[in-house]
């Protein structure tokens, strides 16, 4: 029946092209070459499996071809979400049904790659084989007889070097031809459903007949082996790993500082310019404090996100990340995590959103879930302003101690995350640990184009997910702390300037206390009374459950300032001077330490919860994350508060 479908194709270009192949065969690089900047990444409907979809021009008459980059697989017989999505794309009745299948094959590792080729060929649909990494094969002394391979497989085989864009035109041509041509499965192909052993035997026979392997290890092989011995060694491997990570963080914070300062300066200038244009009053406050403040508070993190993914993509392309995962596997496995968790957990130190999204790299579902659940424990960039504020309040005039407390926050978050992984591994996620099976790909020169595309993809995803929500929260918080407006004499007819002057005369603190935010804080305050928080801190803590960086601006708004999101000495001094209703200081050392512990551990980020739900495919895990992290934060913050009280610290 499916053969009839193929034969019935009109003389037209294919509508949908699916890319399949083993991991590390340069599939995504080839996809980028075919689609350029027109690609987007989305989850396959109803699953958490990432599928990249792009378009490439077919011909003038037929518009564009949809190209689907399926997850990397060694064969189609697994039951992982990735295998099911690929199977769906190859199924004539599937939702992602492909009209032409492009199998990307590593020319330097032909026999193993032919297993999935055999499975696809058995599907009786147009197939083209892209023989990628021809340059690597040549450098290793491996020769491939392309003509003969094409005859054995019964489908077009096109040699390409995707990284350099070689052979792409020939590949496009072959795909157009294949879409309308009849194809007969190889006579010697084991009949479907074939076992992996039978397919492997067939693949080895075809590879033997069509390629010539070098008699001995080449210079490249020997260099790879030597590098691997060094980079995966228990001592030199770990030392190199630490050095590379330090360099990565240093680059991240140093290079990102320049565009971050620029963004802040741009928004500052914009705010000043708008203040000059818009007359003083509520509209000006809304624009400068709510909208501009919200936008700058989000966009300022964009350079870090883009740069991090750019650097990680470069590292991944070189083949080093697989070695890093191998090195980290020993340490992380003690806590029930695989080595691959390392990248998402590292990324989560910039922002939990891309950290959770990069957990897609982890093939095992249980390991992926454990990583997603603990990723928000890692201290993200959004916590930085809060840490700066609270450590400065805790150790006023003692920068060295403040620095130690700052580092301790990072350590506490990481320890809490690893403890949680250990705990969940023995309870909720028990019984499904998977050993690390990892292919160490060949070392390659990284592709800057791939890295730029990864940075663009993640940057856009960050702006879409976080931008709208954080800005909206800032606007709502500004409104809640500004209304109901204190009575102004003859407000209905007064000019804005006069009204603003009158408003300024009203006691700011009383106005804040009677605002909606103040009323809410007083209502919720009994819940945080055991932690020593008054209504103002309660408002700050509760609103930061939507996005934790809102805490600093909320406290500044409640203090009566301009809703600063940037922590400078002025903001710290003003917040330090805040008082409770009884006139005592709001931030005692005990209160600051308690709040610090709470902020390190609490799940205070709405976009993170949304991404957790999206990536796990279930709201259940978002609720577990929120409840577990916040309960742990509350209990530990309470213990710190009581402990300090017993120790006589006020």
């Amino acid at each position, binding site marked *: 029946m499916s053969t*009839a*479908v193929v*034969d*019935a*194709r*009109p003389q037209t270009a294919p*509508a*949908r092209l699916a890319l399949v192949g083993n991991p590390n065969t340069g599939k995504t690089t080839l996809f980028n070459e075919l689609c350029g900047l027109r690609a987007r990444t989305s989850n396959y*409907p*109803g699953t958490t499996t990432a599928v990249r979809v792009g378009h490439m021009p077919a011909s003038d008459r037929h518009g564009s071809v*949809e190209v689907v980059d399926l997850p990397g697989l060694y064969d189609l017989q697994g039951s992982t979400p990735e295998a099911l999505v690929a199977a769906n794309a190859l199924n004539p009745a599937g*939702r*992602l049904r492909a009209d032409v299948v492009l199998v990307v094959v590593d020319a330097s590792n032909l026999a193993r790659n032919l297993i999935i080729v055999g499975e696809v060929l058995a599907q009786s649909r147009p197939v083209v084989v892209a023989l990628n990494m021809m340059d690597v094969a040549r450098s290793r002394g491996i020769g491939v007889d392309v003509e003969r391979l094409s005859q054995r497989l019964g489908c077009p085989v096109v040699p390409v070097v995707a990284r350099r864009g070689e052979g792409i035109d020939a590949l496009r041509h072959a795909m157009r031809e294949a879409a309308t041509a009849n194809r007969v499965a190889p006579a010697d192909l084991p009949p479907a459903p074939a076992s992996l052993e039978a397919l492997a035997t067939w693949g080895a026979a075809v590879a033997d007949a069509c390629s010539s392997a070098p008699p001995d290890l080449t210079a490249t092989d020997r260099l790879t082996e030597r590098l691997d011995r060094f980079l995966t060694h228990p001592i030199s491997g770990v030392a190199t790993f630490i050095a590379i990570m330090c360099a990565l963080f240093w680059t991240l914070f140093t290079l990102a500082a320049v565009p971050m300062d620029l963004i802040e300066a741009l928004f500052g200038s914009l705010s000043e310019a708008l203040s000059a244009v818009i*007359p003083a*009053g*509520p*509209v000006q*406050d*809304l624009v400068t404090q*709510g909208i501009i403040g919200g936008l700058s508070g989000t966009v300022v993190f964009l350079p870090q996100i883009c740069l991090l993914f750019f650097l990680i993509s470069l590292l991944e392309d070189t083949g080093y990340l697989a070695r890093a995962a191998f090195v980290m596997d020993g340490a992380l496995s003690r806590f029930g995590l695989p080595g691959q968790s390392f990248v998402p957990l590292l990324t989560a130190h910039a922002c939990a959103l891309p950290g959770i999204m990069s957990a897609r790299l982890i093939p095992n579902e249980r390991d992926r879930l454990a990583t997603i659940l603990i990723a928000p424990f890692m201290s993200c960039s959004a916590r930085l302003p809060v840490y700066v504020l609270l450590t400065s309040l805790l150790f006023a005039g003692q920068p060295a101690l403040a620095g130690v407390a700052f580092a301790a926050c990072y350590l506490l978050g990481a320890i809490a995350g690893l403890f949680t992984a250990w705990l969940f591994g023995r309870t909720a996620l028990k019984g499904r640990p998977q050993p690390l099976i990892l292919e160490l790909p060949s070392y390659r020169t990284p592709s800057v184009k791939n890295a730029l595309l990864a940075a663009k993809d993640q940057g856009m995803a960050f702006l879409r997910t976080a931008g*709208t*929500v954080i*800005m*909206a*929260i800032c*606007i*709502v918080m*500004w*409104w*809640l702390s*500004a*209304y109901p*407006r204190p009575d*102004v004499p003859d*407000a*209905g*007819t*007064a000019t*804005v300037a006069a*009204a603003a002057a009158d408003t300024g005369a009203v006691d700011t603190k009383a106005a804040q206390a009677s605002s909606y935010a103040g009323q809410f804080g007083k209502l919720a305050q009994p819940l945080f009374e055991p932690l020593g928080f008054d209504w103002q801190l309660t408002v700050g803590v509760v609103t930061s459950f*939507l996005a934790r960086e809102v805490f600093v601006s909320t406290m500044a708004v409640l203090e009566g300032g301009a809703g600063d999101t940037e922590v400078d000495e002025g903001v710290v001094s003003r917040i330090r001077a805040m008082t409770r209703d009884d006139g005592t200081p709001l931030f005692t050392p005990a209160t600051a330490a308690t709040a610090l512990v709470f902020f390190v551990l609490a799940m205070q980020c*709405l*976009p993170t*919860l*949304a991404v957790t*739900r999206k990536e796990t495919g279930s*709201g259940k895990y*978002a609720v577990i994350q929120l409840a577990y992290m916040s309960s742990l934060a509350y209990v530990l913050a309470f213990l710190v508060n009581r402990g300090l009280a017993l120790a006589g610290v006020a």
Partner: protein
Amino acid sequence: MTLLLQDLVVTIVAAFAAGTVLRRVVQLFLPKRQKPQPLRFIRPSH
């Protein structure tokens, strides 16, 4: 613009922002309905 009118404008904007936040909160617990992907063309059946 009178203060009252300004109050009205900023309140409408804040309500819109609150709606955005609420919608995101609701999305956390109510999964989005999956739209079936439309096929690009129908092949002739034999």
